[in-house]
């Protein structure tokens, strides 16, 4: 009882507990061991099948569970071991020796709104190896997913500390929002980075419709289910882990030094008859701007402490985590402090309650916006290398060669701090109504308060880079999400038939409110920069908005298996969304899937080499409301369209968008085939899958032509897209000897095709760059968002070649020749390739011998194209900006060069700057993501130190990258639904070396 008092959360239910000692119960206890090693196993879960009652073994492998007279079975399961079900009969002591199962096929995994034996799955669900994950030193859960699961593509949008990561399951399902849904301990959330990676117990990725359908529209792009660590019965387990490391950009800028650039700039000026900038470039100094904005040897550190345990009637888990990361660019950082607690309590034999709570504070200092005009990452590449950072008097320099911003000044004068406070949690209760019938209610909430602050001081660098009034912008956002899920679960086994069924309802409300205050005229003292110290605080400008979205759903699922060989899963979900007009709100989404455990058939049972073999097939439909806003079915007025008359500002309204009352659910239909196998004493296991995903009524926000005057393009249900692909996962493990090793690999192909664009004529243009052109187009019959521009055809070598064509005027020898295929005298805009890869792959390997372990993860993509945005400047013939080093190969006379990437130098050139294949590069890369060497102290030593485990390790992240891409980093993520593979001056990934320690006692 003492321990129970700890559970302050359950003070309300304390009286119930006191009378909780029900009669007729009997206690069963025992010890669970590893059959091979006789090692006692902690954390094994023991449950009464068909109920929610269960316990786990303590550190000595011991358990004790109360059962009711009507209970006849106990199930013993543990990750990595074959589960066993044992008849209770009259026993009071049941000792079990579990057999290690390297294929994990009997592992119980979490599926939507419940759990299922992995071997009974009929949908496509992949499990992430948590053991390896915990050793990878990842800073966030999404990073942990990278390269782990076939068909899951994780790409960092930048190396900015705390930056978002885009996760795509089976490619881009829709032109719209393609982010998957995350379910953390039953709570549905749109991002996952609030979870401390050290707290994860298991992680599953639901890929096909039959697996995700139960989540309805919210699971349209796949679902990632996380279960966090829970306490287990027995003595408290304390775990401490920490690492510290340093990071540097994996690649530095590849632009020229001062003399080389000046030499080429001279050449460009002379070519157009201008005077050179300096007679003798060789005497000029060099400024490495990228180095000047870099924060070398940026630190990264993590400290994590958790305590878990449990008593007769419940369990608890408590963890504290502090993560700090400096950015590899100056004045950027990310810091996270989180506290997580969960507990479960068996209040009555028929009632179990519990909760999860996470409290989180993150602080980040972001770099100035990364754009293609004045962003510091871009200007660090393009500013001339001759100008120094500061003048002799300490002030920042102006460049005498061009008007490019001083990137060091940009960063110095930019002050940004984003602080977010989040509280997330859920409370749940499981009520056993009858044998096999359980009612579960789960109420979850998420409250996020964010405060973003920008302060700009008074400064003067030069004419174009100056600010005369200091200003402070404070933005506050409040997001309040509530979700309530109620389900009834029923399980029944009779003869060869086993059924489990689920039905329920779910409601969801998302409130968002934001406001901003901007004031000016602030004191210089950093601590005094507050709104009320602004000299202009009585003329503050304010803005604010509010929105609410709601969803309501009915859900049902039936699992049926016959003879434990033939499996059927069927889902049904009805979703209603407030984002659509009444009458278009509701849609219905069914799914079915079948499985056949071939290895259970007599004709295969005798084949020793095959340990398990299962065929699966599934079909299902899911709705998606994409990124449609809360009120996009309406044309709404916006303020801020102001004008002056009579010398007075008249605030005005405009209607920047067009509502579409016809908006309705987008629908994705997936057909999936899969084979799961495990052979050679279960040493080799794998999965092969093939799928086709068809999305119809695709919600598109199609850019509208300028002549419509529409400023915010409306959403439309238009078009149809198909993704198909093959996914292959293989794993080989050998644990037979002292030297153990395992290899794993994932390979996936994605074929994307836009089947139709519906009402849209022609094509969709997207990814505009510097207002020059749209870089990408989407046509029906072709993959989404392909690069478009002119195709180059070498360089004009002489006047005769120029005279032989009519499409290009005002060109000289050494300029790029573009293709005019139809010879109509006009250059042709043609497809220049797809930003989508042909395939992605990953590999991992781990070895251990005695106390040592070594593991590595590789990851790569192949066949995608990238648009190198900074190259528009750094490969410009004008040499007005610093040049990429390879421009030394430029054309300098007839026959010297015919590669269109290297035209002549010519000031004020326009011909060579057209958007063309010259700026489209191969984006394939292969990256050694992690390499880690660890050593665990042996048990004799640790037990003397009263520890149960101690491990130290060295870790390297992003150790090596192989790519032909000439920009700063080929891993640039997906910036928007129709903007893929566009590099606008990306914050590069860091290479990190760290040293870590894990201790359990």
């Amino acid at each position, binding site marked *: 009882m003492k321990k129970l008092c700890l559970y302050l959360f359950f003070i309300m239910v304390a009286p119930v507990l006191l009378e909780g000692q029900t009669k007729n119960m009997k206690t069963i206890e025992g010890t669970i061991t590893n059959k091979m090693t006789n090692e006692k196993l902690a954390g094994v879960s023991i449950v009464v099948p068909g109920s929610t009652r269960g316990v786990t073994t303590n550190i000595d492998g011991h358990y004790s569970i109360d059962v009711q007279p009507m209970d006849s079975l106990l199930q013993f399961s543990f990750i990595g071991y074959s589960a066993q079900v044992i008849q209770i009969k009259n026993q009071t002591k049941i000792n079990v020796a579990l057999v290690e199962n390297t294929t994990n096929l009997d592992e119980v995994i979490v599926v939507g709104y419940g759990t299922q034996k992995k071997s009974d799955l009929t949908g496509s669900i992949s499990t992430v190896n948590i053991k390896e994950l915990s050793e990878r030193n990842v800073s966030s859960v999404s990073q942990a997913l990278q390269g782990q699961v076939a068909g899951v593509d994780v790409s960092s949008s930048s190396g900015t500390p705390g930056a978002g990561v885009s996760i795509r399951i089976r490619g881009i399902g829709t032109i719209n929002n393609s982010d998957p849904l995350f379910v953390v301990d039953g709570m549905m959330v749109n991002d996952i980075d609030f979870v401390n990676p050290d707290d994860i117990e298991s992680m599953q990725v639901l890929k096909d419709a039959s697996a995700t359908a139960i989540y309805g529209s919210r699971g349209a792009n796949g679902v990632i289910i996380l279960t966090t660590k829970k306490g287990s019965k027995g003595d408290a387990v304390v775990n401490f882990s920490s690492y510290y490391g340093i990071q540097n950009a994996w690649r530095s800028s590849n632009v020229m030094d001062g003399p080389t650039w000046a030499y080429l700039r001279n050449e460009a000026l002379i070519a157009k008859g*201008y005077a050179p900038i300096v007679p003798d470039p060789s005497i000029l100094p060099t400024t490495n701007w990228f180095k000047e904005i870099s924060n070398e040897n940026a630190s990264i550190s993590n400290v994590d402490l958790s305590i878990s345990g449990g008593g007769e009637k419940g369990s608890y888990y408590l963890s504290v985590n502090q993560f700090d990361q400096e950015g590899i660019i100056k004045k950027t950082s990310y810091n996270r402090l989180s506290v997580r607690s969960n507990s479960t309590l068996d209040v009555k034999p028929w009632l179990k309650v519990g909760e999860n709570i996470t409290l989180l504070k993150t602080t980040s200092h972001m770099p100035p916006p990364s754009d293609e005009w004045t962003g510091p990452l871009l200007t660090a590449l393009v500013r001339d290398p001759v100008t120094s950072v500061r003048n002799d008097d300490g002030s920042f320099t102006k460049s*005498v*060669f*061009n*008007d490019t911003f001083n990137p060091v000044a940009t960063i110095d004068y930019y002050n940004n701090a984003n602080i977010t406070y989040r509280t997330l949690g859920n409370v749940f209760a499981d009520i056993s*109504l009858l044998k096999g019938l359980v*009612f579960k209610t789960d109420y979850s909430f998420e409250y996020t308060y964010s405060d973003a602050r920008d302060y700009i001081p008074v400064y003067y660098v030069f*004419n174009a880079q100056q600010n*005369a*009034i200091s*200003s402070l912008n404070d933005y506050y956002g409040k997001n309040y999400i509530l979700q309530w899920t*109620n389900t*009834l679960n029923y399980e029944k086994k009779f003869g060869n038939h086993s059924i489990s069924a689920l039905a329920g*309802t779910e*409601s969801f409300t998302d409130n968002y409110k934001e406001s901003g205050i901007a004031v*000016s005229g602030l004191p210089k003292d950093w601590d005094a920069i507050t709104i009320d110290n602004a000299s202009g605080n009585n*003329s503050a400008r304010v803005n604010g908005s509010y929105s*609410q979205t709601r*969803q309501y759903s009915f859900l049902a699922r039936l699992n049926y298996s016959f003879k434990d060989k033939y499996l059927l899963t069927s889902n049904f979900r009805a979703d209603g969304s*407030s984002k659509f007009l*009444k009458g278009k*709100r509701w849609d219905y989404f069914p799914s079915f899937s079948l499985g056949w455990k071939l290895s259970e058939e007599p004709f295969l049972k005798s084949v020793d080499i095959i340990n398990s073999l299962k065929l699966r097939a599934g079909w299902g439909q899911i709705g998606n409301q994409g990124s449609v806003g809360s*009120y996009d079915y*309406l*044309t*709404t*007025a*916006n303020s801020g*369209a*102001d*004008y002056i*008359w*009579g010398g007075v500002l*008249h*605030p*005005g*309204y*405009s*209607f920047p968008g067009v*509502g579409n009352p016809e908006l309705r659910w987008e629908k994705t239909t997936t057909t999936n085939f899969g084979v799961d196998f495990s052979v050679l004493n279960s040493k080799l296991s794998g999965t092969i899958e093939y799928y086709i995903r068809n999305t119809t009524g695709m919600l598109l926000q199609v850019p*509208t*032509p*300028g*002549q*419509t*005057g529409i*400023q915010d393009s409306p959403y439309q249900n238009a078009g149809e897209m198909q993704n198909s692909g093959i996914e292959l996962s293989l794993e080989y493990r050998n644990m037979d000897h002292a030297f153990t090793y395992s290899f794993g690999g994932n390979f996936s192909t994605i074929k994307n095709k836009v089947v139709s664009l519906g*009402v849209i004529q*022609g*094509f969709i243009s997207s990814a*505009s760059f*510097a*207002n*020059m*052109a*749209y870089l990408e187009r989407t046509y029906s019959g072709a993959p989404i968002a392909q690069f478009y521009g002119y195709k180059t055809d070498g360089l004009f070598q002489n006047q005769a070649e120029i005279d032989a064509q009519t499409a290009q005027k*005002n060109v000289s020898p050494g300029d790029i020749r573009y293709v005019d295929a139809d010879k109509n005298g006009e250059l042709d805009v043609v497809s220049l390739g797809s930003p989508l890869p042909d395939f992605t792959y990953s590999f991992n390997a781990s070895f251990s011998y005695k106390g040592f372990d070594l593991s590595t993860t590789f990851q790569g993509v192949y066949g995608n194209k990238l648009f190198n945005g900074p190259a528009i400047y750094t490969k410009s013939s004008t040499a007005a900006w610093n040049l990429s080093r390879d421009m030394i190969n430029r054309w300098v006379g007839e026959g010297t060069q015919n590669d269109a990437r290297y035209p002549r130098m010519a*000031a*004020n050139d326009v011909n060579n700057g*057209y958007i063309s294949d010259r700026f489209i590069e191969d984006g394939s890369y292969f990256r050694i993501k992690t390499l880690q060497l660890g050593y665990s102290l042996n048990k004799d030593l640790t037990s003397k130190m009263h520890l149960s485990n101690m491990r130290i390790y060295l870790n390297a992240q992003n150790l090596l990258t192989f790519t032909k891409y000439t920009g700063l980093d080929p891993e640039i993520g997906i910036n928007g639904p129709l903007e893929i593979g566009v590099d606008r001056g990306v914050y590069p990934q860091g290479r990190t070396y760290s040293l870590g320690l894990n201790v359990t006692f």
Partner: protein
Amino acid sequence: MKKIFSYSVIVVCVLLGLQACKPDQFLDTPVPSITDAIFFESDAAALSVLPGVYDPAGWGNYSQYLQWAIGDVVSDDAVKGGGGDGDQPQMYDLEHFQATEQTAVLEAVWSDLYVGINRANKLIAGITDNSKISADVQKRLIAESKFLRAYYTFSLVRIFGGIPIVDHILVPSEYTNPRNTIEECWAFIESDLKAAMPDLPLKSAMSADDLGRATWGSAAALLTKAYIYQGKWPEADALATEIIGSKEYHLQPNYGDLFIVETDNGMESIFDIQRKVFPNAPYDMGEATYAEIYQETRWDGIGWGFDQPTQDFYNEFETGDIRRKWTIISDGDTLWKGTPDEVIIYTRQDPVHNPDAITGYNKRKGQLPASKRGELPDQSPLNTREIRYAEVFLWQAEARAHTGGDWQSPLDSVRFRVKMGHTPISDPLAAVYHERRVELGLESQRYWDLVRTDRGNLMEGYTDNKRYFPIPRIQRDLNPNLTKNPY
């Protein structure tokens, strides 16, 4: 057990029942914005949409940049200037007739001006035959919208030639309408202005609170300008005569007072784009213009030094014509003499202070003394003079030079103000052209004056196919029905 079960069942039913009772009602979320369906319910609501129709006229891309970049810099009156060739490369490309489909500012202007057209259409659609809006308000607001729609269309047509006419809120099937012919565009501009004129107030009848809104004179003057651009001389003469006869406008007695804040919406103003600086308005431009800082001398370390007058333009002024010093700053000129703002300006090339100066001149019109500028150096509160009364005389003179009427009297009206006497040039057209160049110098007119009078060859690099600028590639990507210009 039974008890437990029945309690549980009750609890479950209550919970499920609570949640499932009225899902559709649950989904009826409040809409915190005002939809267009219920917006136009009062005169006040209609009036609150009007500022948005004027708003794009003041935006940065056109009236603060491209209008003078084409009108002055592309012409023979000025060169780009700024911080060398690489500074504002787009303006360099425009100036050297090497603009392309990718020249971004053309795309920005195309989009901005059509936003104005769309907003005008939205207001017209919202109030036309709407019983909740009083007849007077309907009449005047529709007329103002039509005037602005014509202004935006006119601005587009002289840059791009024929463009798609948009005279109503487009439905999706019309989003990719092709270009209309230039004749159709002129007819549309004329019909909008003719429709607007009778319903717009006279400037003299307008209260001070309304100054800056469109008047009968604004529409009549823009229509005259449209006639002039089309070479419709008799119509232009008649309408110019009517404007003069209305006695609504007067020449500012001192030419030097034309470009000061005090004469915003003044006696000579027919149509001003309104500018104002608000205290503590950093970041965005608010309602100011950055044309001034673009054109301010680089010598002071603040200005950007664009739009530098050429020697040829300097020489165009007759001896003793004071308009030169109010148009061009020469090296060593003292400005705002005798005031605390007094400053000597050095416009000549100087390796330390003004290394980029090219012509040795800077623009005078629009330059404000420090005390009249906003707190931020790039914010100028001076209204942009779109149409001023002196030009009406010049139109009248030009029209009569073609029709054989009395062209000298209107020219005299303009010249006498600056004490210049009769024009020394005997050829009527040559006299008018000269007078336009000096009177309206660096007021974003010259390029269009040259091309509409077939004198484009005065500009180096100009050929007839360069008259209209390239249709932006972005727009042709979005609307494949847009044909190219032969640039």
